[in-house]
């Protein structure tokens, strides 16, 4: 019963996100602030993780190939496929559920605890639109983060493969070009938009409807990470089934 109530409150929140809009000039400023916090602020950690995980994928692939009949370009091919199809969109989104999701939940949760949300409501402002809508718009730029992750992941794979002497540069690049299907990139970005919506709304919902004090803000942040991750994994499966099978 509680789950049904929670799901209901999530969809009611979504309905309120797109009604009684905040004044345009204020909203524009909020959107730029959210882009700074959620997108620009996430780039360093995404870049760091992508580069090194890309390197690890290349090394792991190379170390597991001991059959001379398997072409050397497979290292580049496997790195590209892993990064574009799964690592960049899904793995990075799980990391973002921890970083961005917890930030969103704790910031909205703190506003709830300190009555800042009540203050907005008393002023006649639709607090859900004011708080959540700018996050959804900011996260429309999330595919940019994922594109950066794809590029740096592949670059990391190339650096580790070539400078670790697991592959030649020519073979690695041949692997990157081998059997390339542009639709895989489209599929990855479609997934990314779905994940971006989940990343913006689920942590906001957890923060907005939390009750209690500072301890509950911490609990809500943990719940937010769990729920966001679960929904990302589930939607990943559904989108993959729909688009690739």
């Amino acid at each position: 019963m509680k789950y049904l109530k929670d799901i209901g409150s999530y969809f009611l929140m979504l309905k309120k996100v797109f009604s009684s809009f905040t004044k345009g000039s204020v909203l524009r400023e909020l959107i730029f602030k959210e882009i700074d916090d959620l997108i620009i602020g996430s780039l360093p950690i995404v870049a760091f993780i992508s580069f090194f995980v890309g390197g690890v994928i290349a090394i792991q692939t190379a170390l597991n190939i001991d059959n001379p009949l398997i072409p050397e370009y497979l290292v580049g091919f496997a790195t590209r496929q892993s990064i574009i199809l799964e690592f960049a969109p899904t793995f990075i989104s799980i990391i973002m559920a921890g970083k961005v999701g917890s930030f969103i939940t704790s910031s909205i949760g703190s506003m709830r605890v300190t009555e800042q949300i009540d203050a907005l409501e008393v002023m006649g402002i639709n607090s859900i639109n004011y708080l959540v809508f700018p996050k959804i718009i900011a996260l429309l730029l999330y595919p940019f983060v994922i594109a950066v992750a794809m590029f740096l992941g592949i670059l990391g794979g190339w650096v580790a493969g070539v400078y670790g002497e697991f592959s030649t540069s020519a073979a690695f690049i041949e692997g990157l070009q081998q059997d390339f299907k542009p639709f895989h990139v489209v599929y990855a970005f479609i997934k990314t938009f779905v994940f971006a919506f989940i990343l913006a709304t689920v942590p906001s919902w957890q923060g907005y409807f939390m009750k209690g004090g500072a301890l509950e803000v911490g609990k809500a942040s943990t719940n937010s990470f769990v729920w966001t991750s679960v929904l990302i994994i589930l939607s990943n499966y559904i989108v993959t089934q729909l688009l690739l099978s």
Partner: protein
Amino acid sequence: MIRVEDIKKNFGKDEILKGISTTFDRGKTNLIIGQSGSGKTVLLKCIIGLFEPDEGLIYFEDKILQDMNEEEHRDLREDMGMLFQGGALFDSMTIEENVMFPLRMFTKQNKNEMLERVNEVLRRVNLENVNKKYPAEISGGMQKRVSIARAIVNNPKYLFCDEPNSGLDPKTAIVIDNLIQEITYEYNMTTIVVTHDMNSVMEIGEKIVFLKNGVLVWQGTNDEIFKTDNEDVTSFVYSSNLFKKIRDIQIKEQ
């Protein structure tokens, strides 16, 4: 003027408000007092629309809150200023931005006009040179004053204060009380203050509504509260040793 008629509010099986009826007058500081858990804050939240009463009507002048459409509701809320218990200032904004916020949301003033008004109300609450500071960088008393400035910046008709003195030392509490009363006169507002602070009652209680377990058991002025025979009120008023001693001295003198 705000009038409430037979307001009832339950949370699950708990009856919090059991039919409250009273009037809060314009140009006066109206106090809702009572022990913790008596339903004061719930009544206030029903009046400002954060809670919906299960039964009863709330009148703002001659209009019924429950009958208002969305636009009327929004217009009414633009006429409300609220001072929350903890100040409820926006952490991510400077003091200037906090006070300017209602102007940015609801007026078409340019930045210079807004700044002029912000400085005017900050001066009114005796705050200067704090414009660029963040709420965390000023004291609790100053936060309350900023919150009052934000509440009055848009010239509201109604001012609501939820325990404005909580967490403040007695001297600062009196400053805040007097400020609320002065502003009520200046702006001719209907002010409702929820408190359990007897000093506030003595300082600014022009009309006092006493609640006990969700029932209005007494109402009157700050002079009358010390003369009433109502046992619930006297046990609340004389629960502090200070007031008991003052009463004993008065009885001896008589």
